[in-house]
């Protein structure tokens, strides 16, 4: 069900080509904010984009939340050490033995348990949310990197070389886009053993999640990169490089890749929230990381049996996912608008 999301953002971001045809090679990145102080100055597309991004309040708010979440994920042990209990420690004294719900009102929220306790076993929800951020962000980032690298390489190859290579790669992308991703992943994860390649328990599952989400993500990147490469490869500056005797790989690396960075960057930022949702969905369906490792989707799947008696335990991880995805989407939309050469918003 996340596929249409890709579709939407793919459609939106096709318009995003930052053309720097007269300045191939590494874009001039010296333009930090204070460098634009002089009266009239040539500005690179990157500087223009940066100025635009700085004016976009919503995108900045998104970026701020994203940075905050990354810090939370990195500093999880410190934060939990200061404000919470170990994430897999049981606190059955906080639980009503008769109903399995927290004794305290509002899901057991107190100064001791900042976000309440989990029904039945009384684990600290705050600690599990903080540790859940690690899984969520780690899987989403790594899967996005994997998809972007694979999609870029194969997309460039398809677009630049054309012919039967292009035909074959395009077919593969079509097939992959029609695969029922969620169903496939849960089927795959259900047959995975607990130990694989020296990893065990959550390690296997995290690796499987990254690989599967990334693997199903690359065709979306591949299609865009292929399209861009097709339109760029006949530009004058490529011909100029060819007539100067540049080899194919030199042209790929020095002439094409720099001009593809903008659309790839936009797509990568917008892919992260989609990946977070996919990870949550898979964990919700029981195909993600297993307890005791905490993940937001898995907390929601626990909540589905208890939410009528203890709604707080359902609302908190749901909002954690919502806020995180929203922040990345705001930031991603901002980056896209900032890099859009046509856009003045």
């Amino acid at each position, binding site marked *: *069900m996340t*596929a*249409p*999301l890709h*579709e*939407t953002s793919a*459609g*939106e971001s096709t*318009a995003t080509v930052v053309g720097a045809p007269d300045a191939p090679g590494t874009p001039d990145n010296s333009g930090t904010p204070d460098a634009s102080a002089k009266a009239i100055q040539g500005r690179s597309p990157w500087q223009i984009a940066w100025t635009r991004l700085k004016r976009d309040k919503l995108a900045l708010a998104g970026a701020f939340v994203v940075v905050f979440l990354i810090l939370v994920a990195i500093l999880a042990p410190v934060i939990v050490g200061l404000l919470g209990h170990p994430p897999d420690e049981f606190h059955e004294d906080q639980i009503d033995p008769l109903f399995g719900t927290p004794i305290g009102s509002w899901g057991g929220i107190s100064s001791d348990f900042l976000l309440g306790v989990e029904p039945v076993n009384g684990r600290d929800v705050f600690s599990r949310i903080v540790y859940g951020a690690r899984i969520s962000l780690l899987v989403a980032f790594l899967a996005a990197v994997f998809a972007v690298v694979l999609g870029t390489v194969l997309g460039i190859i398809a677009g630049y070389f054309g012919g039967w290579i292009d035909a074959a790669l395009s077919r593969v992308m*079509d*097939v992959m886009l*029609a*695969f*029922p991703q*969620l*169903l*496939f992943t*849960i*089927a*795959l994860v*259900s*047959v*995975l*053993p607990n130990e*694989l390649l020296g990893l065990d328990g959550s390690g296997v599952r995290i690796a499987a999640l990254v690989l599967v989400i990334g693997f199903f993500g690359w065709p979306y990147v591949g299609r865009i990169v292929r399209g861009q490469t097709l339109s760029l490869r006949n530009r004058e500056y490529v011909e100029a490089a060819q007539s100067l005797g540049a080899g194919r790989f030199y042209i790929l690396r020095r002439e094409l890749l720099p001009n593809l960075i903008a659309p790839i960057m936009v797509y990568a930022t917008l892919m992260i*929230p989609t990946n977070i*949702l996919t990870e*949550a*969905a898979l964990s*919700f*369906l*029981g*195909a993600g990381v297993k307890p005791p490792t905490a993940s937001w*989707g898995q907390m*929601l799947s626990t*909540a*589905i049996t208890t*939410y*009528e008696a203890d*709604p707080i335990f*359902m*609302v908190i991880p*749901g909002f954690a*996912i*919502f806020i995180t*995805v*929203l922040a990345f*989407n*705001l930031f991603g*939309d901002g980056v896209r608008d900032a890099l859009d050469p046509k856009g003045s918003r």
Partner: protein
Amino acid sequence: MLAYIVRRLFAVVVMLLVVTLVTLSIFFLIPKMTGSDPAAMFVGKQADPASIEGIRQKLGLDEPILVQFWHFVSGIFVGRDYTGGGDTIHCAMPCFGYSFRTEQDVWSMLVDAFPVTLSMVIGAAVLWLVLGVSTGVISALKRGTIIDRAAMITALAGVSLPIFFTAMLAMLVFRTQLQWVDASYTPITESFTGWFGGLLLPWVTLAFLYAAMYARLTRATMLEVLGEDYIRTARAKGLPEPVVLGKHAMRSTMTPILTIFGMDLGALVGGAILTETAFSLHGLGGLAIKGVSERDLPLILAVTLITAACVVVANLVVDLLYAVIDPRVRLA
């Protein structure tokens, strides 16, 4: 045109075969590589060796993957007999497999589940298409106003909410607290109001997510279209604004949206796994989850195949419709 259809149909068949083969391989090759016995997986934990052996023979798990593949595919067209462990189970055409867990023909399980998914998806699709497209168009026309910003922020929030969370929130508020709607699904043949009440929340929840996506897409497409030369020409030659928008702009705006609508519809009919799980509906998505949690290979194989078939067929229909709607598209 005919040659194009034939070629596309051929591609569809090849793709479905690939999906079947890959699914079979997951359940056949991965357990083998990691040293566990697939037959034992399908029987359950407290299985005696005899019944494991029976399953192995019935499913032909010792045979090469391509032979198993052939048995499966031919079963769809001519039916299939499962022999082994001293008895034979006949599975009539179209045989999508036999579930040893539930001792049922998979095809009959699919037939039972399909109306649930179909009712859910069609109802939601009507809602989200109307809601999403109209919001997107209004937003594009009122670009930059407070209406546009409010609509787009709501839409962004909509696409950022995991559907299973929205589903639980909706159930909590409207079912548990306010008690406006009933809990369970009733077939339309039994009671229309029961059917309507049982599906109202799934419809609204699913439609909210998709309406948000469609509103964003419609707005972006519409803005792009409004910047095109032919719109300026239409205005310059003095056409009234309703004609420019209604006839000229809407036509190009709708083409990409219909494309995605077709694909979304196909994907959802093939299994709205998350929505069905959250609302405990027993449609195709629910069947898929049941199959995975019980490690019922024949069931998973069939549902995966049906899901992929829905997506691929929807793609084909969309491509053909495209040629009808948009005269610029030429089928080579």
